[in-house]
């Protein structure tokens, strides 16, 4: 059914998606810029618009512990956090993935303290990168809403069974009001279907134990099972994107490309800045420069082959990172280089670390990045905008 467009901010759009999914359990602790998600969803609960068990907890650590356990009992579970909240959850992140619970978490991406800063960068999610969670990025509010619905299906697929992060840029998306076309609630319910957990903890007819002591004999094999689940998630994601297109008319790819086909130089970037960089590409195209930009919508599993295909034959690749592994590179840079190794020839590759702590990066700034690389003045790693 065709739905009317609405004006909504990113956080409220996430809450709307949850309302339409009607999960069994939600536990979350408020933290800027995620707070509106939880406030808005609490309203739906209080107004009886959902049947979700909404549990107030005293910290993010408790929130994720509760959500992991609730998901393992067979309850469809959602939560949300940002920055220090995600950091405080850290201990439970790899436990949730090793328990193979398909819970869904929205991350309103915000710089990690310290220094303390509430604005957007990807320090939170990048620091949680190696914990075995699937990870999706969104460029705008519509995508944040859509990814939330899509994420449920990917995570719960029996070939995957992994928790999933849905990233939306703090303030830029969480608080900005944009026009979106939501889906019909029945279509969402039909799309996500019923959660069918494997070996849930509360099945009294088939008693099971979860999260047992492993030791060296089982630890690595269990990790390897997670590797397989992640690998399967690539195909599952592509399939779910296709199915989602049928009900929404919106087409998503694991790598979103903009004018990359004939480009000699492409940039790779995550999140809302993808949109800004598209404008920069348009500007440079008008000047006759063959440039393009791409966003790995799916960050975990890392779509190596799709990235290699994207970079094949390109002269130059610029990796835009909104986080810094201090003493090394931006976190995405070595991952892109690794993907490029799949091809016979390597492009010239540069890393730009930009926008840390929420520094506004505008269309003209991104155009400058392309120009600086073209002029040969770019270094391997560039701390964009910082006076070196």
């Amino acid at each position, binding site marked *: 059914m065709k739905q009317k467009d609405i004006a909504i901010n990113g956080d409220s759009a996430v809450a709307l998606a949850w309302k339409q999914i009607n999960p069994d359990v939600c536990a979350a602790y408020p933290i800027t810029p995620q707070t509106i998600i939880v406030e808005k969803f609490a309203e739906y609960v209080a107004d009886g618009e959902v049947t979700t068990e909404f549990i107030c907890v005293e910290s993010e650590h408790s929130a994720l512990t509760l959500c992991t356990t609730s998901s393992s009992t067979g309850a469809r579970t959602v939560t949300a956090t940002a920055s220090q909240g995600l950091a405080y959850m850290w201990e439970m992140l790899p436990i949730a993935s*090793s328990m193979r*619970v398909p819970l869904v978490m929205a991350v309103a991406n915000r710089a990690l303290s310290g220094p303390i800063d509430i604005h957007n960068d990807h320090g939170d999610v990048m620091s949680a990168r190696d914990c075995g969670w699937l990870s999706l990025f969104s460029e705008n509010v519509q995508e944040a809403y859509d990814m939330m619905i899509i994420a449920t299906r990917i995570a719960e697929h029996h070939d995957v069974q992994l928790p999933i992060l849905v990233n939306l840029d703090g303030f830029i998306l969480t608080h900005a009001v944009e026009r979106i076309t939501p889906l019909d609630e029945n279509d969402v319910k039909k799309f996500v279907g019923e959660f069918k957990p494997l*070996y849930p903890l509360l099945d009294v007819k088939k008693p099971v134990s979860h999260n*047992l002591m492993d030791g060296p*004999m089982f630890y690595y094999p269990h990790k390897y*099972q997670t590797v397989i689940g992640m690998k399967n998630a690539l195909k599952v994601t592509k399939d779910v994107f296709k199915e989602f297109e049928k009900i929404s008319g919106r087409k998503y790819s694991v790598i979103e490309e903009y004018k990359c086909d004939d480009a000699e130089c492409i940039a790779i970037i995550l999140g809302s800045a993808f949109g800004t960089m598209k404008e920069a590409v348009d500007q440079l195209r008008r000047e006759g420069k063959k440039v393009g930009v791409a966003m790995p919508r799916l960050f975990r599993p890392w779509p190596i082959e799709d990235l290699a295909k994207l970079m094949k034959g390109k002269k130059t690749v610029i990796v835009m990172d909104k986080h810094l592994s201090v003493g090394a590179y931006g976190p995405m840079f070595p991952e892109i280089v690794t993907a490029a190794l799949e091809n016979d020839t390597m492009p010239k590759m540069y890393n730009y670390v930009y926008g840390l702590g929420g520094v506004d990066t505008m269309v003209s700034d991104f155009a400058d990045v392309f120009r600086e690389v073209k002029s040969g003045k770019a270094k391997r790693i560039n701390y964009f905008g910082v006076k070196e």
Partner: protein
Amino acid sequence: MMVNMADHNSMIVGDRVIEPGNSEKFQTGDWRSQVPVLDKEKCIDCLTCWIFCPDDSILTKDGKIAGLKLSHCKGCGICAKVCPKDAITMKGD
């Protein structure tokens, strides 16, 4: 060649055990470095050791001590410590 790793293909995904009560198969007696030895002559069948043993390794029959079942005995020595008659001694295993 590494031999002590399980085959992930034969494992349930997600660190789960779906067979109830199977911890009995885990022979914790393998960990033992000391073994309790019972002297039936000194024993007065007070059953203190039976109450205290954390691994259910003291066997009883008709309210009397019937021996030790060492498959799960970790050699903790509690039985020897609590015995009022020093009827149990710990020996190297």
